């Protein structure tokens, strides 16, 4: 008995398939990936390819184990997209076997454990990212990138902070890593002068400890840790008079002069393409970016916490790719418009909190995972059903 609608083509409607949607998202990822490969590290292309091939193989095996039709589900493009996103999120220097382990986790734990496409409560790529970062903290935080372009530019920032050429010898860290390091330096330099200043860096008690002190296992071996051990301490350091402004200026320079901002802008361009192609709605990206912006502005205006200026804050780290490509994954995001706005705001808040107050320099992945937990509640609370006659009529 067929009472279903006739094929969309009969009434002249160009229906978009799942594969089409995934294809559009991948298309939107292309410029960002190219910019990444050109300006930062060409190895990212290799990583993306390895991830995609591994993901297809793992997916095929899992579909076979679950006794599902392999070809149609393999071709829907969702796993390719997820693998691509994961490859973009991890350092290009990550050993291939670790990346493949991440892919196995992503496909098995993140997706098929819950019943495959459309059933996963968490974003699979972010599940894999989280597993990778707790399993391989060293390689996951050590951004040993082949700097294609000249990175010297942003080390010559007009700042009272010392030039630290040895950083590049150790690692070509991302700007957010660099800010971490700068913050600890600023803190150490200013702490004796103003020990009672309220609220200042209060949330980072780890850095109050003596340098070289092993902090947490997670931070062990991170650039931060390396820095803490290697930093020359003592009279050579110039006292910093206005730490807040200094930090802001440094942040502005570190981010705006790094090639990473071009990558972020390329993600933004891809995201805008997705918006206009009607693949995603404006709710989640707008609410993520707006929340992060408001929080940075608010903290900046309060003036007791060292923060990054607005534009660099938005262009740093994984915020753009997170807001437009990761948070908008429809399966694990909230689905009503109000729900999406709250979901996005939550991601913004968590991103800010994790960035500013945790051991991790960037928090988009955890923010997305944390908000994924809230999605069932958001979906339950924010429906938009028309009131029934009993409830609505007087």
């Amino acid at each position: 008995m067929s009472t279903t609608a006739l094929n969309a083509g009969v009434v002249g409607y160009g229906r978009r398939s799942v594969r089409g949607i995934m294809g559009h998202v991948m298309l939107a990822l292309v410029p960002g990936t190219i910019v990444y490969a050109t300006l930062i590290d060409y190895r990212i292309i290799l990583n993306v390819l390895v991830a995609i091939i591994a993901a297809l193989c793992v997916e095929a095996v899992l579909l076979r184990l679950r006794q599902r039709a392999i070809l149609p589900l393999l071709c829907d493009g969702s796993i390719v997209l997820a693998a691509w996103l994961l490859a973009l999120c991890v350092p290009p220097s990550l050993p291939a076997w670790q990346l493949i382990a991440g892919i196995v986790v992503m496909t098995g734990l993140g997706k098929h454990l819950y019943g495959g496409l459309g059933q996963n409560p968490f974003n699979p790529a972010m599940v894999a990212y989280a597993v990778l970062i707790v399993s391989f903290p060293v390689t996951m935080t050590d951004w040993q990138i082949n700097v294609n372009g000249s990175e010297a530019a942003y080390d010559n920032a007009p700042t009272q902070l010392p030039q630290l050429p040895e950083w590049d010898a150790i690692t070509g860290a991302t700007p957010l890593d660099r800010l971490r390091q700068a913050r600890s330096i600023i803190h150490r330099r200013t702490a004796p002068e103003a020990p009672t200043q309220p609220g200042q860096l209060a949330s980072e008690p780890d850095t109050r400890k003596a340098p070289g002190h092993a902090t947490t296992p997670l931070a062990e071996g991170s650039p931060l840790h390396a820095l803490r051990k290697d930093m020359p301490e003592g009279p050579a350091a110039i006292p910093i008079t206005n730490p807040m402004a200094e930090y802001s200026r440094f942040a502005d320079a570190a981010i705006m002069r790094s090639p990473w901002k071009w990558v972020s802008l390329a993600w933004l361009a891809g995201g805008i393409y997705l918006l206009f192609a009607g693949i995603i709605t404006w709710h989640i990206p707008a609410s993520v970016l707006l929340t992060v912006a408001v929080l940075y502005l608010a903290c900046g205006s309060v003036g007791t916490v060292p923060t990054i200026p607005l534009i660099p804050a938005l262009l740093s780290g994984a915020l753009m790719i997170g807001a437009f490509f990761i948070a908008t994954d429809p399966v694990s995001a909230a689905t009503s418009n109000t729900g999406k706005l709250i979901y996005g705001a939550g991601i913004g808040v968590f991103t800010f909190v994790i960035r500013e107050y945790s051991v991790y320099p960037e928090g988009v992945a955890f923010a997305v995972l944390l908000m994924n937990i809230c999605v069932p509640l958001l979906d339950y609370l924010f429906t938009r059903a028309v009131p029934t006659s009993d409830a609505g009529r007087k």
Partner: protein
Amino acid sequence: MPAETVMKLLHHWWTARRDEPVMRGGLTLPRHKPGLPVNGEIATLVMPDRLVLPLLDYHGRRLLPVVSVGQRVDYGESLAPGLIASASGSVIAIEPRPVMHPSGRSELCVVIRPDENGTVESAVHEAVPELTEQRLATCGVTGLGGAGFDTASKVHKATQHGEQLDTLLINAVECEPMISCDESLMMCHATEIIDAIASLMTMTHCKRCVIAIENDKHAAIAALRQALDLRPLALTLQPLAPVYPAGAERQLVERITGQLLFAGERPTHRGILCINVATALAARQSQLGFPMTSRIVTLAGRSVDEPVNVRVRFGTSVAEVLRQTGNKPSLASHQVRTGGPLSGFDLASLEAPVTATTNSIIVQPVQPTVEPLPCIRCDRCSDVCPAGLLPQQLLWYARAEDLAGSRRFGLDSCIECGCCDLVCPSGISLTQTFRHARDSQREQRHRDQLADAAELRFHKREDRLAQRQAARERRRQDARAKLIGDSDAIGDALARARRRRQRHERPGQSGDHATPSHDGDS
């Protein structure tokens, strides 16, 4: 929810900026209206040799026939309450025949063999100066739009409060692609339609009257304007942007009057009478004395060589319509659909007869069914849902047969338009899932009612039996009380009984004294 409020404000602002009222959701589909009349005439089919009229009302409830086999019936004569003979002839059978219903089931039908006068259509009643509900009912006028409601009772409900009818809404939207029967009617009979609207306006004393029509029906709009120039009426001709499903009653009312109907609420509750343009014309015909015995049917689809709109008498089988228009599809290789490409259903038998709600017959080659992918919650369905629901969420509950959850997500507000099916990238049959959920909810409610009734009857019966038992007990007590009144009588009776027993037992005893002595002591 502040966000929703902001959205609403923006929506209002956007609406106010435009001349035409916009509707939420819906799909803009390319205009595809095959078979429009070219020379201002709509052909009528030749009388078939059998007319099959199902004994069913618009709900699908069975009707009791008031005619018998062998009886001669006249054109316009009543066959059952609400069912009119569409030609004169003799009743040759009352038997189960396939009917036009998604179930494909056979139901009792009156089969008429038309006689030579069958094609003669004349006024069977006197023309009345003003249309009445009585006349609508006598002439069997039902909605020619989609649901086929009884027009007389609809008018009655809209006007029963004694207050003036707020809005008379003439639905000339016909938003579903490939259906053009109402458009053809407006192109060919604009003058009569305006007359019909005038009669309805007089009948209902409405405060205002609006004809809603899609703005891409240029020829129809021109014809109506021309007719309005000849007979000016105090009404608004409201062109609307062509969005599917703009013609759905609730959506149209919302768009024209700005009133959002609650789930399960009908426009008549708000003093709005929404009548299809073809129904209005049928009402006018009934005023002149003609019963409603035919309708215009659009014949279209990829397997139809020449799409056409024809006037078909009720009871003509689909096979006959196809044969007379030169089509010979078979159900093996073709999909024959009625009710429209999006909201209709496929026929299980071509013998099913055309009824008032058969607006179209669409013949397509059979399409391969595609296995649906899982839902990825892409939100396309909620973007296009004209009822403002979240079909992607509703789907979970409807699939799990969680009726409470389904209702929470607005199952009752779903109008089954099929927009979500059309946009779903995974190819999920959402609408059909919702249809099933609605029906099983209805049946659940029905079963609950039956159970309640059975329980009530059971308890009534128990009470009755208990009362009867109590009455019997009372009578016995009364009798005993009468005896107790004379206490010696009982003592005497007991003594007599004891003596009698002793007398009886003595001769039977053979040396065993235990029992008698014990008896004697007690």
